[in-house]
């Protein structure tokens, strides 16, 4: 079985290699090759899953050590994999959703001459993501970590001729790099602490280390997670990332990559459990982000950006849960999976809409589409219900659990976090309803695009709608299935561990509360977007709205402080390098030259002055000699 783990990563990597090296001659078949390798890895994943199920819960950890990577004295980095329930869950999510989105993209990217490259990148992403979740040590995880970063860079900037896309890609990579810095430093600390950075030895010796160090490691890991999972304060790139093709947004920036941060935290549970401060930090970040994202989501008119905001906020939920420790780990992952389904579904829906509307993204120019693209409407709608946590659908099962767990943390922390999570649920309901109404209901607000083509909304081809439907199915039933006598909990528990915190409030009370805020949110949205017509141009809106439209001014802050500041710094440094550092050297040269010119004048061509210098010299010579003797 073990070699299969390697094959899991190898298959899409091979695909990527073929597609990128193969060149133009593969243009015609490229996309199918891509889908093929994605599917292969999914199949392998399923096989391995079956294998795991066939074992007793304690035996469900497979490892395979490929080769020694970097051996330098104490520093032993290996290329080795570890497949346990946690990574298995991710493998299935990644390969499954991944494959679906591959297929969807065949249709969506049909008219793009670089489709082959696109699939190459997608495969590359799958490989990197699988490496990330399968690595058995942090350094290899780091490789996958940056690998997905690269894939996301390439895919966001896929339409490189669009400056906005190129900029967004660059921004994404840079912000991620800041996070990666955290991860790499964390690894260094681990190495200096444990003399290793592989999961087993590190987790095994957590006990023998001062809490301070663990907190440091934890916070550094959190920094990394923030970068990858677009958590405050490193969230600013996700919105721009929507410049990429929609399937990318669905796969990378909704379902899988952005959730890597959550994976990192849960995977490092052993460390976090021993470092409460770090855990609290995770909770806070999560809580802040879930509100932040939700607010942003409310204000955006760009459908994808709105969804991006919601992604942020949902991941905030997961982070919050992960920060709660054993109480929350399982639910974090569970929400991650369900979110994978419905958010991917929503994005694909959005993509389908854009596909029908000449790539229009402004919701104020949609409206009344439900009749024109029914399948999209239905799938999107189901995803909508799922995300707002409509009772019985996936989101309900996972999100409520998180809210419950937040309360269960106990103490004021518990109450605050719980409250925040609850409010977040309400806002979620609001902005999702808003998206729903503005897109599919109301009256037509369509407008010709730049080239003046009137939009002719139409249902997307089967190849796109089928994946959408499958995802919709998932977003409806996944949560339920997981929760049947808490199968998911039992499945993950051996890895993450679990404890039922004693919630100060009963489960039913929370459910009721959630429903209440949900109805409030929906109602509010209906009030402002359903009852009255949506203006084609955005009204000025309140201060908060305007701030939210600008991602709550976070970008402006970055721009002023980092970009401007950086520019000034570099410009002054360039000047300094030229004038001071180099100037010193050239100055010396000039000085010698000047001195030379001055000394030259002594050579005035007159014999007599030469004679003077000779006689003077002799006098000095004599005097000096006498002086030496002191006569």
């Amino acid at each position, binding site marked *: 079985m073990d070699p299969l783990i390697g094959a899991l990563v190898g298959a899409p990597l091979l695909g990527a290699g073929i597609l990128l090296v193969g060149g133009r001659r593969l243009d015609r078949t490229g996309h199918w090759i891509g889908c093929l390798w994605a599917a292969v890895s999914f199949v392998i994943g399923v096989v391995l899953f079956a294998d795991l199920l066939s074992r007793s819960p304690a035996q469900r950890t497979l490892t395979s050590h490929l080769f020694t990577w970097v051996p330098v004295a104490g520093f032993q980095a290996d290329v080795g994999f570890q497949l346990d329930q946690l990574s298995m869950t991710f493998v299935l999510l990644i390969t499954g959703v991944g494959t679906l989105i591959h297929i969807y993209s065949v249709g969506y990217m049909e008219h793009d001459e670089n489709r082959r490259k696109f699939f190459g990148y997608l495969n590359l992403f799958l490989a990197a993501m699988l490496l990330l979740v399968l690595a058995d040590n942090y350094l290899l995880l780091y490789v996958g970590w940056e690998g997905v970063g690269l894939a996301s860079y390439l895919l966001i900037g896929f339409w490189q001729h669009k400056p906005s896309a190129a900029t967004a890609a660059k921004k994404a990579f840079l912000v991620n790099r800041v996070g990666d810095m955290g991860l790499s430093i964390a690894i260094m600390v681990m190495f200096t602490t444990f003399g290793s950075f592989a999961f087993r030895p590190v987790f095994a010796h957590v006990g023998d280390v001062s809490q301070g160090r663990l907190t440091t490691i934890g916070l550094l890991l959190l920094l990394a997670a923030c970068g990858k999972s677009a958590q405050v304060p490193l969230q600013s790139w996700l919105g721009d990332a929507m410049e990429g093709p929609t399937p990318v947004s669905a796969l990378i920036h909704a379902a899988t990559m952005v959730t890597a941060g959550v994976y990192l935290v849960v995977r490092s549970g052993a460390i976090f459990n021993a470092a409460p401060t770090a855990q609290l930090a995770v909770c806070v970040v999560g809580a802040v982000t879930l509100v932040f994202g939700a607010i942003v989501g409310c204000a955006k008119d760009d459908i994808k950006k709105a969804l991006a905001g919601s992604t942020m906020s949902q991941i905030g939920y997961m982070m919050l849960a992960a920060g709660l420790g054993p109480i929350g780990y399982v639910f974090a992952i569970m929400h991650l999976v369900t979110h994978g389904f419905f958010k991917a579904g929503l994005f694909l829906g959005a993509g389908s809409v854009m596909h029908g509307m000449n790539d229009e993204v402004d919701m104020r120019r949609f409206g009344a589409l439900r009749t024109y693209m029914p399948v999209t409407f239905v799938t999107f709608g189901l995803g909508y219900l799922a995300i707002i946590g409509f009772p019985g659908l996936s989101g309900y099962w996972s999100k409520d659990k998180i809210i419950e767990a937040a309360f269960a943390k106990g103490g004021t922390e518990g109450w605050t976090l719980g409250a925040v999570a609850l409010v977040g649920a309400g806002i979620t309901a609001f902005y999702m309803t808003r998206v729903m109404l503005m897109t599919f209901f109301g009256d037509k607000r369509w407008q010709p695009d730049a080239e003046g083509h009137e939009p002719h909304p139409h249902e997307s081809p089967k190849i796109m709608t089928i994946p959408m439907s499958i995802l919709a199915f998932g977003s409806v039933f996944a949560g339920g299935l997981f929760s049947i006598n808490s199968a998911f909990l039992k499945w993950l528990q051996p890895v993450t561990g679990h404890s039922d915190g004693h919630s100060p409030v009963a489960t039913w009370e929370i459910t009721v509360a959630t429903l209440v805020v949900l109805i409030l949110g929906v109602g509010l949205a209906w009030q402002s977007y359903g009852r009255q017509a949506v203006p084609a141009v955005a009204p000025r809106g309140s201060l908060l709205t305007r701030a939210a439209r600008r991602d709550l001014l976070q970008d402006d802050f970055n721009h002023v402080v980092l970009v401007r500041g950086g520019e000034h710094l570099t410009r002054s440094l360039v000047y300094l390098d030229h004038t001071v550092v180099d100037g010193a050297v050239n100055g010396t*040269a000039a000085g*010698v*030259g000047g*001195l*030379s*010119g001055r*000394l*030259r004048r*002594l*050579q005035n*061509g007159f*014999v007599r*002055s*030469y*004679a003077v*210098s*000779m*006689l*003077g*010299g*002799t006098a*000095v*010579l*004599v005097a*000096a*000699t*006498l002086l*030496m*003797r002191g*006569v």
Partner: protein
Amino acid sequence: MSATAAAVHSLWTTRALADTAATPAIPTPHIEYAQLSPVLIVFGAAVLGVLIEAFAPRAARYAGQLAVSVVGLAAAFAALVALAADGYAQGRSHVAAMGAVAVDGPALFLQGTIVLIALVATFTFAERRLDPVAHGNRVDSFAAQGSAVPGGEQEQKAVRAGFTTTEVFPLLLFAVAGMMIFPAADDLLTLFVSLEVFSLPLYLLCALARRRRLMSQEASVKYFLLGAFSSAILLFGIALLYGYAGTVSYGGIADVVDGTAKLTPALANTTGNDALLLIGGAMVVMGLLFKVAAVPFHMWTPDVYQGAPTPVTGFMAAAVKVAAFGALLRLLYVVLPGMRWDWRPVMWGVAIVTMVVGAIIAVTQTDVKRLLAYSSIAHAGFLLTGVIAVSPSGVSSVLFYLVAYSFVTLGGFAVVTLVRDAGGEATHLSKWAGLGRRSPLLAAVFAVFLLSFAGIPLTAGFSGKFAVFKAAAQGGAVPLVVVGVISSAIAAFFYIRVIVMMFFQEPQPQGPTVAIPSPLTSTAIALGVAVTLVLGVAPQYFLDLAGKAGVFVR
């Protein structure tokens, strides 16, 4: 003879006999002709040259002179080798000619060097392919008739008649003979006389350029006046030393300095008076520093080097340095070692000033010959660092450096003679722009010489520099080494500048042409390159040679 006469004679003689008892008989001097043969051969050749000038028909002179010079010098070199082989370099080295001339390692080594330099110089003197043919006669770089007024009627005639100044060869030979004695001189009188013997011909040679005669004559006048001035000072120094020691022989003075010689108390007020010693010593040293062109006695160098006919410049730059440093070494190591604590600090100062000033002034030069002049000054400074290390390794390092330097210098000036335009040699640097394009080989050769001057590894210059600096450092003069290093960095700058000119700049439209030399000049240049590379890559043999020759007889 008649009786009266005899009587008268007897009268005289008896009286003479009467006081012969009082006056001691003066012994007939005993001269070791064999050991002095090299010098004597060269002198003989010179005299022969004069005779040729006097009696041979014009047409025959050039060939005759060339033959005599070459043969004479070759013979002299052979004699030197023979002497060295007989072990005069080490074991049997002693003072010949009644204590006038030393025959020892350094002397033989330096004389050999000088003779070889002279041989190469003879070739460059004899070069007749460079200047355009004048009225059907091949001409060399010397004036048709030295006495004729530049541009005057008489000169026209001389040129038309195809006159050439073949006197240069005997002059060269006389100078060489003087130079050979100079480093071997073992008493101050010989020192002074030989100094004049090689200086006077050089004064004349400087005045004999075919092109730019005014500059040539000016150079000659400057050189002559300053040279005479310096030799006068030197002579006064000698007088004082004589007054101090009562003798002018190196050995004698050294004994007095060491206090080994017993002094007549009656004369104690003058004899052994340190003031005389110090002042006299300083003045003599100054005379030698003038010849080696050390700051502040260097000012004649650029002007003379620029004005003199380039072959002469090359000869002077190489040979005079060798001879003068030889004499300086002998003076400081044989006569004044006892008072090294007095002169060493002073020489420190001179060395530092020489290195730094030479290098710095050169930075802004625009004329190749002046540039090389200043570089020669800087090199004098480097050599002085070797002199200051009072140790055998110091001597040998200086000897080695002199060989390396002199042949590269000869080659360098030989190259300068080849780059010509309408007005003769094109010595202004701006004219050298793009030479690397026009004739890569020549430019490459000159670049090699420059790199050697700059002391880049794998060239003779580096080996020499390393040798002297090493000796200095071992002699405890580390600061001097540091200064040397810094000034060689400065020096590198202007050597590089020339290379930049030659290779990285576009050639100018009416730039100079490169004359195709005869085998004579080619030999000189080739030899320069050979020495540069051999001494740079495999210097061991020559270092040993210099090392063996590193001990002075006393």
